[in-house]
């Protein structure tokens, strides 16, 4: 087995053995149980006699359901971003500080294989978690309400992209910055990107070109929020998108709306960004004395 695969498997085993996966599983089961119950209660309202006070029309239900689902998925994204930051930030620097890495680094394995292996391990964990958590949520919601968001697979791909962005950046930090500082910077960057996304949409809606530019630069420098907006778009039914388009300035500064999917050029930029940041992480670790 190549060094990269050995390290990837070690990363996954560590996450499982140190109860990270168990913790995520418990949080996810609680969130899914509570939200599916909520969806079921909401769906009951569509069965009320039409015209009664509590009656919810199918269109209203879809609008509600999509918005609630976006909020639930934001919770998943947040948990995942936190998990990515706090597992990736000590993964290289922490192992150097503790001495765990010393004996491994003198084996016939390159530093590039170590960084790529860890990245691969985290990337697989994130993808499996996103697909599992979002997939189960969608299936159960569909089971109790017959509602399915318009583009579930695209949504999963965007969410995986958000996680990989945060994780790759934190992994780069971990090659040079002490664990705690790396975690704080990684989380700070994620938060700033989120604020940048709000600034971007506010700038567009309110015609504040400087604010729009600042937001756009943020989206390019740290693309987690740009991808998150792609994820939102994939969950929005046509009725919501039409409503948003017609709501003018009222939609300004709403971080849970998106009126368009990210253009292909932006997606290409995101892919290139992850590749470049990962390359920087490899270079940074290779040139570091231990």
């Amino acid at each position, binding site marked *: 087995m190549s060094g990269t695969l*050995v390290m990837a498997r*070690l990363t996954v085993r560590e996450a499982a053995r140190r109860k990270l996966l168990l913790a995520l599983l418990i949080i996810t089961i609680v969130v899914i149980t509570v939200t599916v119950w909520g969806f079921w209660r909401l769906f009951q309202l569509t069965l009320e006699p039409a015209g009664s006070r509590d009656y919810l029309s199918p269109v209203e239900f879809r609008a509600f359901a999509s918005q609630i689902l976006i909020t639930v998925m934001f919770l998943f994204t947040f948990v995942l971003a936190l998990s990515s930051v706090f597992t990736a930030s000590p993964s290289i620097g922490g192992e150097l500080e503790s*001495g765990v890495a*010393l*004996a491994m680094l003198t084996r*016939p394995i390159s530093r590039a294989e170590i960084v790529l292996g860890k990245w691969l391990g985290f990337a697989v964990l994130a993808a499996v978690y996103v697909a599992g958590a979002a997939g189960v949520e969608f299936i159960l919601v569909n089971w109790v309400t017959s509602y399915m968001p318009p583009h579930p697979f695209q949504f999963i791909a965007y969410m995986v992209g958000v996680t990989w962005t945060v994780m790759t950046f934190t992994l780069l930090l971990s090659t040079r910055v002490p664990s705690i500082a790396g975690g704080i910077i990684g989380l700070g960057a994620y938060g700033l990107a989120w604020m940048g996304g709000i600034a971007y949409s506010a700038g567009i809606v309110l015609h504040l070109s400087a604010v729009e530019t600042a937001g756009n630069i943020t989206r390019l420098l740290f693309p987690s929020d740009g991808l998150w907006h792609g994820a939102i778009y994939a969950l929005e039914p046509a009725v919501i998108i039409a409503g948003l388009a017609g709501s003018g300035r009222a939609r300004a500064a709403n971080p849970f709306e998106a009126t368009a999917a990210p253009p292909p050029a932006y997606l290409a930029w995101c892919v290139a960004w992850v590749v470049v940041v990962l390359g920087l992480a490899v270079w940074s670790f290779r040139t570091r*004395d231990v």
Partner: protein
Amino acid sequence: MVALDGLTMEVGRGEVFGFLGPNGAGKTTAVKMLVGLTRATSGRGTVLGAPLGDIGVRRRIGYLPELFRYQGWMTAYEVLELHCELARVPRPDRRKEIEAALVTVGLAARAHSRVETFSKGMQQRLGLGVALLGSPELVFLDEPTSALDPVGRRDVRDIIHALKARGTTVFLNSHLLSEVERVCDTVAIVDRGKVVARGALDDLLGGGGVRLRVADLDGRVDTLARFGEVSRDGDWISITGTPAEAVPDVVAAVVGLGGRVYAVEPRHQTLEDRFLELLGGEGEPA
């Protein structure tokens, strides 16, 4: 900050080599360069014929770092298994390699315990086991006995003797000079990044000597000069350069000259004496 400056030395294959120096002399930095963890800003070196940092040569070396830890969430067996994979030990040989390492370092009974439950001494034993995997041609041991009790120290000596017997080169950093004296063939003493003495242990320590407390030998002391360099301090006569097997002859000569012998102390310079002498009495052994 300059850690090493003009460090020049050579270790022969099959030698047990002791690398000594005071705290901060650059010993660990030198080892880190040799195993490829740190790069030298200038100069060059080879390990097993390959340039420093060569990835291929790492298959043939074992390393016990000075400050280390292994994955606490793994068992000792799993740590060794991981290092077998990383060291590219062929899959069919792994089980045998791991079990042999566990027996050698005395951890067979704890093979399936998590490393986080191990004492420091047991972790050091595990570190030694990791360094021995894959029958390396060269083993770097940085302070291998620092956390061990007397039994553990004896075990490490036995391991080093066994490594030597099978032709493995051992590069030993140790602050325990008595340990180095007991296992090493050659020694280098480093101070402020430079090697201040290097050679076979016997050469470095000089010949032996004997010290006698003698009465009634006035004026005839000089006739003992054939045994070595003679010096006198009251009743005590010191002869340096006398091999241990010549001590009875010295005593016989003193008695033959009419001297009355009250005490005989065969002695040789210890590594600690030599170490302190070379460093001008400064710094503590490290």
